[in-house]
């Protein structure tokens, strides 16, 4: 239906004083997809999202959202794009349902407010003022406000930060339903499992650039591949195992009695290893195949030090 992407960012640069928050970032997001933007704190995620939302002007590069300029065409874009800020955005004295109802009134064909309130469990907020709601309730209200106008595209900045597991599930379900009905979703998150669960595409941002992008499967493929683990008696002679393993494979004993085999993974490898175990009279306990997770990829790319 639409061949042009929902979001197209090319060479985006954004500086705050001497600090360069975004440094030549490229990102293309296809319509109807869920994209997770991952990155350490300060990587430039929020700045990028807020530039797409029209809150910031690029210092260099171009940003197109639904084919339009977020600053120059703001009036045309605002009804079509749903926005969930990382925090705030609600009158401190407002009650959750009345704020949502008001937001709905600014749109021509809003969702049914009562159904949305029930779905996100906002009915229990009652007459409590926004500033006294729990962090999770505030998050869910902000999410509801982002989708109530039936947008084509929603930007969710850390939608599940501070949510309990139930609320997190409810948010995931909503994102899946949005995708099912053709809404493009762009979300930032620190939860890598969230990206694995929800995202068609992942963009890993660090130092103001996208340093890796693709589907979760594409990102997890390659690199050190996967590995096979088993437990047995300590001090087995791995020399005889190496003789039967394919070239380039490595078997190690990282801790006594715990073994790790790194090699291109397949049923043959499994058969080779278990046959070897049988030949030396060892029962391989807790035999597991570990695939590279998104977390492994993320830490490999962005480093392990705290920042």
């Amino acid at each position, binding site marked *: 239906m639409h061949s042009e992407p929902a979001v197209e960012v090319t060479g985006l640069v954004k500086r705050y004083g001497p600090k360069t928050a975004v440094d030549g970032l490229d990102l293309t997001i296809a319509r109807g997809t869920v994209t997770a933007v991952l990155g350490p704190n300060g990587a430039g995620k929020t700045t990028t999202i807020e530039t797409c*939302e*029209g*809150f910031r002007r690029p210092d260099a590069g171009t940003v197109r959202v639904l084919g339009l300029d977020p600053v120059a065409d703001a*009036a045309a874009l*605002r*009804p*079509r*794009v749903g*926005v969930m*800020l990382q*925090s*705030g*955005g*609600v*009158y*401190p*004295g*407002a009650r959750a349902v*009345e704020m949502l109802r*008001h*937001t709905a*009134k*600014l*749109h*021509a*064909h809003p*969702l*049914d407010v009562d*159904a*949305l309130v029930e*779905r996100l469990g906002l009915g229990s907020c009652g007459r409590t003022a926004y*500033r006294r709601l729990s962090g999770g309730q505030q998050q869910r209200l902000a999410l509801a*406000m982002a*989708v109530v*106008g*039936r*947008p*084509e595209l929603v930007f969710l900045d850390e939608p599940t930060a501070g949510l309990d597991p139930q609320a997190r599930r409810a948010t995931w379900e909503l994102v899946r*339903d*949005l995708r*099912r*009905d*053709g*809404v493009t979703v762009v979300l930032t998150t620190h939860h890598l499992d969230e990206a694995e669960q929800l995202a068609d595409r992942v963009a890993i941002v660090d130092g103001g650039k996208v340093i890796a992008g693709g589907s979760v499967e594409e990102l997890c493929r390659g690199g050190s591949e996967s590995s096979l683990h088993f437990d047995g008696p300590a001090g087995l002679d791995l020399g005889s195992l190496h003789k039967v393993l394919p070239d380039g494979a490595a078997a190690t004993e990282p801790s006594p009695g715990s073994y790790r085999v790194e090699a291109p993974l397949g049923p043959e490898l499994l058969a080779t290893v278990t046959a070897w175990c049988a030949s030396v009279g060892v029962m391989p306990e807790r035999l597991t195949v570990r695939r590279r997770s998104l977390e492994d990829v993320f830490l490999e790319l962005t480093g392990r030090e705290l920042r």
Partner: protein
Amino acid sequence: MTTYEPRPGAAPVGRMLLAQTAFETRMLLRNGEQLLLTVVIPTVLLVLFSAVDVVDVTGPGKRVDFLAPGLLALAVMSTAFTGQAIATGFERRYGVLKRLGASPLPRWALLTAKTGCVLVTELLQVTLLAVIALGLGWSPQGSPLAVAALLVLGTAAFSGLGLLMAGTLKAEATLAAANLVFVLLLLAGGVVVPLSKFPAAVQPVLELLPISALSDGLRDVLQNGAGMPWADLGILGAWAAVGLGLAARFFRWE
């Protein structure tokens, strides 16, 4: 089952304006400190100073004939300046203005709604003060048109200054400064203390304050039955032009 299938669109602008004005007014009337400032203080001052002979009033008629115009001016200042500055400052601080900037509501419509909210509140204040003053024997003179012109220009002048403060200072600084200015102008702006009681040297300066122009103009009309108080309207117009102009130039939305 709910469908989330996109069906975007802004509501008609008239409906947005009405909804935003009603919402802002509801938020304002729910706020206890705000009500103290806009309703309780002017009312108490009116009743107290009409009944008790602690301030020297000037001009013809009863005490209330001097006091009522001053407290109408105070009511305008409390809502258009102090209340609006504090509320808008905190809306800015809590990202309300930023989030509304991403909604279909245009910015001009947000500011128009804020003005509408101020005018609705002032209408309630003026009605309440007028009823109480009439109960205290107030006999207003002059033309309602001149009164309306003063109230509208006064609102514009104070709104500009309030928005300038809210859009440039931190919320806490706005809270402190708006209250301080309120008290200073209450005392030195001819609201309850006639300007003629101040030293002659400072009177010409005090007369140029927006609150002095508003209370003096209202008193000219309502107490003395004067026609259009052009000089006071001129002062208010100048403040409105400067305040709104600077606010438009320097207001920061987040």
